[in-house]
């Protein structure tokens, strides 16, 4: 059941009605209906994975309490590592085992040793990377005594399984979400309205931008050896907007619908393509994951403290881990590694925190430099996305090589029976709209919101891609 599906359009109003009109008396009843809805939502993919979700929830709930109750350091450590080990074990088995087994077999065959690895025939449970990270952050925070353990199982379950964030985030923190589920939510019209606006804008990003770009990006990436330089450049740009529209669109829909239930989720995207350097890009892209790695990996490793060599090591660790989090494929590792390389000069020159605030242009020379920096950062991001999108690293390298060596910049007719440049106008309009609204959460609210909402709905109806349905990219992670 995807957020942009007809079934979800039926599911959401039903849950909304039950939540506010039937189960609205107490916090417990509100949480109960949300849990029920969340489990139903998750079971729509594969009901068998519900057991995994419930087990994972119970594990972190129980170990959290044990860690808090125990004063003995080694017992605390035992419960902590039990939780971390099992959580990561699930990820290892479902997501990474086959990758490691086949990679080892390839390595052995390179040394002339033949092996036939035992591969698991399992489907990756949807959202496993997200809810595992939820649970991990909770247990780690209890272990380091940053938060108290949650004793109410329903409340804790809702923190892990809340359906708007269950399958593709944002990766919530107990400090942010748990306090909200501990109190009864009262209906707030303004907040709900904001939610509708944000949901609608997320839908525009998904069906107009992401799915539109996907049609072109797929036609180009899947036939890249026959593409000219112009098509390959456009392919990379289209994919950059596909993944942005897809994931930030999903996040906007999640945040928007959550507001309908009176719950605020963490912001996950903050106009990343208007970043002036890669460090800023990573503070604006998939914020909940970046901050997770920062708080639970980078800072414990020493972060930006210590010698430069240690700082460099830490940067490479979190970027490569972040790439690997996305999937068990060398291309994701390469993508993470390339981003670490981009980040390195900023770290060495102590410029990684130069651009904190959103870019604000004035009529001066500095603004020209800032615009150039935005384009340069976008170019770097696009080059890295090629590795993310390509099937293999060899394909990615060949794609880039051809992009720079082909030298033909004529328009080209693609396998999807369209010319390569046709979508550019829509992408440019989208960029202009986002640019003009970069200081707000979405472009619909504010003055003339009714008109803007009508335009957004018209764009969804008239410009959306519906016949060639595409799943959300991040569901596979």
């Amino acid at each position: 059941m995807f957020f942009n599906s007809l079934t979800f359009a039926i599911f959401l109003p039903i849950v909304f009605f039950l939540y506010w009109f039937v189960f609205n008396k107490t916090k417990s009843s509100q949480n109960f209906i949300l849990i029920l809805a969340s489990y139903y939502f998750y079971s729509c993919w594969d009901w068998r994975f519900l057991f995994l979700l419930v087990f994972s929830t119970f594990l972190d709930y129980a170990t959290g309490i044990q860690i808090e109750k125990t004063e003995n350091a080694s017992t605390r450590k035992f419960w902590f590592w039990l939780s971390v080990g099992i959580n990561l074990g699930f990820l290892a088995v479902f997501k990474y085992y086959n990758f490691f087994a086949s990679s080892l077999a390839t390595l052995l065959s390179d040394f002339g040793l033949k092996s036939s690895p035992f591969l698991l025939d399992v489907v990756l449970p949807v959202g496993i990377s997200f809810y595992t990270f939820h649970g991990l952050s909770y247990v780690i925070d209890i272990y380091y005594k940053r938060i108290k353990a949650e004793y109410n199982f329903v409340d804790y379950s809702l923190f892990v399984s809340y359906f708007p964030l269950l399958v593709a985030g944002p990766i919530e923190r107990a400090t942010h979400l748990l306090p909200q589920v501990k109190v009864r939510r009262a209906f707030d019209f303004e907040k709900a309205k904001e939610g509708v606006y944000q949901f609608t804008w997320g839908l525009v990003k998904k069906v107009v931008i992401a799915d539109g770009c996907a049609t072109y990006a797929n036609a180009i990436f899947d036939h890249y050896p026959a593409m000219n330089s112009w098509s390959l450049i456009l392919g990379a740009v289209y994919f950059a907007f596909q993944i942005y529209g897809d994931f930030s669109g999903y996040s906007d829909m999640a945040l928007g619908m959550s507001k309908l239930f009176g719950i605020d989720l963490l912001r996950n995207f903050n106009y990343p393509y208007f970043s002036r350097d890669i460090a800023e890009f990573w503070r604006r892209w998939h914020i909940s994951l970046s901050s997770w790695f920062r708080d639970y990996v980078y800072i414990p490793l020493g972060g930006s403290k210590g010698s430069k060599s240690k700082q460099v090591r830490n940067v490479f660790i979190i970027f490569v881990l972040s790439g690997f989090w996305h999937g068990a494929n060398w291309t994701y590792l390469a993508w993470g590694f390339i981003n670490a390389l981009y980040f390195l000069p900023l770290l060495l020159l102590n410029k990684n925190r130069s651009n904190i605030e959103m870019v604000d242009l004035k009529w001066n020379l500095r603004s020209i430099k800032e615009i150039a920096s935005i384009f340069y950062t976008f170019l770097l991001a696009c080059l890295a996305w090629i590795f993310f999108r390509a099937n293999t690293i060899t394909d990615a390298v060949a794609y880039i090589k051809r992009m720079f060596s082909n030298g033909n910049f004529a328009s080209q007719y693609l396998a999807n029976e369209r010319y390569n440049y046709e979508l550019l106008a829509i992408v440019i309009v989208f960029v202009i709209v986002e640019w003009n609204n970069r200081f707000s959460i979405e472009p619909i609210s504010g003055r003339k919101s009714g008109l803007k909402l009508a335009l957004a709905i018209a764009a969804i109806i008239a410009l959306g891609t519906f016949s060639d349905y595409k799943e959300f990219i991040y569901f596979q992670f």
Partner: protein
Amino acid sequence: MKSFLIFIVKIVLITVLLAVVLDFGYTAIYLNSKSRDKVADVFKSKARSYDVVILGSSRANNHFVTRIFEKNGLKTFNYGMSGGHLYEASLLLKLMIERNYEIKNLILEADLNLSNDKQSEGVAAKFLPYIHRSEIIKNHFEQESNFNELYYIPFYRYLKFDSKIGSRELFNTIIQKKTVANENGGYYALGVNKKGNMKNNILSLNPLKRNKYYEEIKQLCKTNNIRFIPIMTPMCENVIGMNYFEKVKSAYPEIHNYENVVIENKYFSSCGHMNDNGAKKFTSIVVRDFFKK
């Protein structure tokens, strides 16, 4: 909460209103602009007179060279549509008859397309802008499972088939972007394709015993005094020995088997489609056999 519910009702109303307005706008544009495909061309036409009309899929569109018919004094148009099934061929013929076309001969490419009597969504979509303006189209689609959605929900048909009749096609219609669909008498020549796929496994393919739309076309021809010439058109060397065409012949003895009149791969762009040279050779044989005796 009351304010919010009113807000949601307003959004629903705006959405419905937009769908109605867009539906009206799209339909008006498709109705009042220059035709970009064969369906629109027939829909907007008035009585025409042809010696030969050709119907079928791309294997008709790429195989019957209109010019060769014309050279022999036969006023001809190739209405073969790439990707089309007999479902659409039948509907197109019904539209022609409704518009009082005078057709003497109808050549129907009837071979691989006999294996199903379902619609080809991409081609059938081209009829949908006119569904409220033609009883023929409405009746033809009425048997489809999604007819109610297509007919009654405003804009649903443009949304469902956005790649065929959606905003992109609308834009191309508005700017009158050039199309070759109706040029060369409807014939579309394929070039020599050295990398063309010359393999096509049709071993497991079976013609339907009674293809509903084939029978419908046959009956329409009979009722309207049109000479009906169903033809199986050539395929590449690779399919020799796969007895699909024999299966067709035994189920439909009246269909003329021309599968083997052109067989060499040099005449093909891909296994199922002849190039221009192959099409000329094939068309000359057809003209000789049916129109010169």
